[in-house]
């Protein structure tokens, strides 16, 4: 098998800036909440372990984007595990990695407190029951997530958030190496893993058409797409 790239999964043109819209929408939502004042701060303080300084708007936007990416991965791997149609090694992978991504969802929700967003709805369009498609998609998601977290690591304002992202980041890299090993691709192809942009991740997510609806509190709706 040749090395998988983002392009392998990028099989349709980008349809909508789902995730971009999502973050834009939630950013507006954040400002609305900010007017209400200390509600989110109070909520955070109610959880002693997370009694950290209030997240900045930039950190909230970054964490919300990551939360959606974790929702997507957790849902995809969880569905593959439930359906049980993929190969045994890939199924082991989806079981372990699905549990980890659910852990990431909880961790990021914990960091966001009241600023957490709800999960979008997904339709995985058969990918969760086809071993080859599942593996290719998982390689792309794990490689890209690890790459995105590097970009975010130098963007976040809070060093608490940075430390948290770092401890999730290396787990995504483990996932990537493991699924590559299963696929017979070199798990660690380069001495240095390069960062990637949010735009690239958005393009990947768009290209899959996995996101079918995005929770909204207000704003215009785009026509739904049915694939």
């Amino acid at each position, binding site marked *: 098998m040749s*090395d998988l790239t983002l392009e392998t999964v990028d099989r349709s043109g980008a349809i909508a800036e789902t995730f971009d819209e999502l973050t834009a929408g939630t950013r507006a939502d954040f400002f609305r909440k900010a007017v209400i004042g200390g509600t989110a701060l109070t909520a955070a303080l109610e959880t002693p372990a997370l009694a950290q300084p209030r997240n900045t708007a930039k950190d909230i936007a970054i964490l919300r984007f990551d939360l959606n990416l974790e929702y997507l991965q957790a849902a995809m791997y969880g569905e593959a595990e439930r359906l049980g149609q993929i190969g*045994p090694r890939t199924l082991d992978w989806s079981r372990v990695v699905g549990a980890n991504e659910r*852990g990431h969802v909880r961790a990021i929700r914990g960091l966001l407190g009241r600023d957490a967003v709800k999960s979008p709805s997904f339709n995985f369009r058969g990918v969760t029951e086809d071993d080859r498609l599942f593996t290719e998609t998982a390689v792309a998601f794990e490689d890209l997530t690890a790459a995105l977290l590097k970009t975010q690591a130098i963007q976040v304002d809070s060093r*608490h958030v940075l*430390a948290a992202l770092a401890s999730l980041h290396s787990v995504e890299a483990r996932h990537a190496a493991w699924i590559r090993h299963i696929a017979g691709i070199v*798990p660690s192809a380069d001495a240095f893993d390069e960062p990637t942009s949010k735009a690239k991740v958005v393009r990947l997510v768009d290209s899959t058409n996995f996101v079918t609806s995005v929770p909204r509190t207000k704003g215009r709706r785009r026509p739904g797409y049915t694939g």
Partner: protein
Amino acid sequence: MSEPLIQKATANHDPAVDEAGSSRGLTRGQAIAGSVAAGGALAAAGILAGGLPRLAVSKPSREQDARVLEWLLQVEYLQAGFYTEVERRGALRGELREFAVLVGQQERAHVNALERALGRNSSPKRPALDFGDATTDSDRFIPTAVELEEIAVAAFNGQVPNLTRPRVMTAMKIVSVEARHVGWARDLAGRNPAPQPADKPATQEQTRAAMNATGFIQ
């Protein structure tokens, strides 16, 4: 890269799993299912109740960058020394050899990158190392590789928040590769490559203790 070799070497590797050393006889699937249950509990109790790193750091500065990178370089010297000796002694075969050769190249590249980042004003000391038969005995090699890679991942994760932004990126680009190594090594060993949702960072003291406990540093 030589994908076919990897597939071949993986095929004849023993699938029996022993994550904690106490569950012999379990199939890989059973052992992994067990560790997922444990992982779930950790996710709830660990991540949310303080498993995410606490910080006891001073404000990042160039001076602090240099101290941190010098320290991380010691971790890289240990790894690079290990794989370089594996390759030189040439006792391993199949995918283990392939792993050691590729990972060795990458660890040496990390050493070079950190030495370059530190510049000429710094003169880091290379430790004297003795790996015994861990570099020639395939039963000892892979657990040692897992251990050294775990030490590196935890050490880098612990230092990332102490660095200035340009050096955060330097460290992230390296730790990501260390995490790939540990995932690969654990899969080769039949162990769960990603047993926890978050990698616990180590302090410098914890890393030093773990490095000394290997017995490789003279």
